[in-house]
């Protein structure tokens, strides 16, 4: 990314200025949910959509690139990655100096991933039907995963079922408590995430 006013450069995965007058400055990540339009309509019936000029054909101009498992970027990089293939998709989370990636394949198989190693425990949930991935951090007042928060279908159930949340939005559905805060996550190919965060933890 380039900032027009300062002509400085900011790689998206880092959110940090690497060149120009703002060098060293950092942006804060903003929470987001990765989903599909069909699922968005169900989760947020009052939601708003970025206006497009026309409907056009379905798909991305990069579908050919997306579909080629051995085309990693533009420079003929060899797909010789360990643990995952270079074009496997991951959902990445950064907290301070820690980075954790969760493979989409893991989420498809298990429906969720617990990340207790972060300062505030995080749970990543995934819905295969709606292709919705979201991560929720538990602040101290939520008592964290140690208290036994359990995923049950599209819900997250607190200890003793005293509270139940949507596993897609973090909204409180039953009981007493606050909504779960959505944690910032990034959707990326493994080769790209690893390039920017070589010390990343990986759940796969």
């Amino acid at each position, binding site marked *: *990314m*380039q900032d027009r006013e300062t*002509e400085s450069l900011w*790689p*998206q995965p880092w959110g940090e200025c*690497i*060149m120009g007058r703002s060098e060293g400055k950092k*942006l804060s990540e*903003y*929470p*987001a*949910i*990765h*989903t*599909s*339009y*069909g699922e*968005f*309509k169900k*989760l*947020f*019936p*009052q*939601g*708003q*959509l*970025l*206006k*497009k000029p*026309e*409907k*056009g054909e*379905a*798909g*991305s*101009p*990069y579908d*050919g*690139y997306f579909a080629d498992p051995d085309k990693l*970027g*533009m*420079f003929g*990089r060899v797909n010789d990655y360990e643990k995952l293939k270079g074009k496997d998709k991951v959902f990445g989370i950064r907290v301070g100096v820690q980075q954790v990636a969760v493979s989409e394949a893991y989420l498809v198989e298990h429906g969720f991933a617990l990340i207790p190693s972060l300062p505030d425990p995080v749970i990543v949930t995934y819905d295969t039907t709606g*292709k919705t991935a979201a991560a929720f951090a538990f602040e101290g007042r939520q008592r964290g995963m140690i208290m036994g928060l359990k995923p049950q279908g599209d819900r997250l159930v607190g200890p003793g079922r005293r509270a139940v949340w949507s596993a897609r*939005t973090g909204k409180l559905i039953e009981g007493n408590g606050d909504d779960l805060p*959505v944690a910032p996550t990034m959707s990326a190919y493994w*080769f*790209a995430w690893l*390039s*920017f965060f*070589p010390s990343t933890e990986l759940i796969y």
Partner: protein
Amino acid sequence: MAKRLLITIALTAIAALLASSANAQQPEPRMTELRGHTMYWLLQPGEIPAIFEPEFVSIETADSFYYDEEPLIAVVSGDVAKGYSTWHLDHHEVVNDLVDGTAIAVTW
């Protein structure tokens, strides 16, 4: 690994080449030394037009030009939920927006 990183940084600026016209004239990539490594510039700033004044529509209206399977990045703040199509972001890569008074850049 560091070389891979710099190449990956360059990739964020060249994604549009994959979908650009075969007849488009592309300038010679220039190089910059950055932190002891070489960074390649394959696009000029602004060649992928970012969105600076996004407009939003209701679901009722969006049904006319969104597909159910269309991937979205959804940003939620309180009762406000906004969806940004990544198929649309393929052509713009950055949307500058305000959510609950906070300036954000939605990037893809």
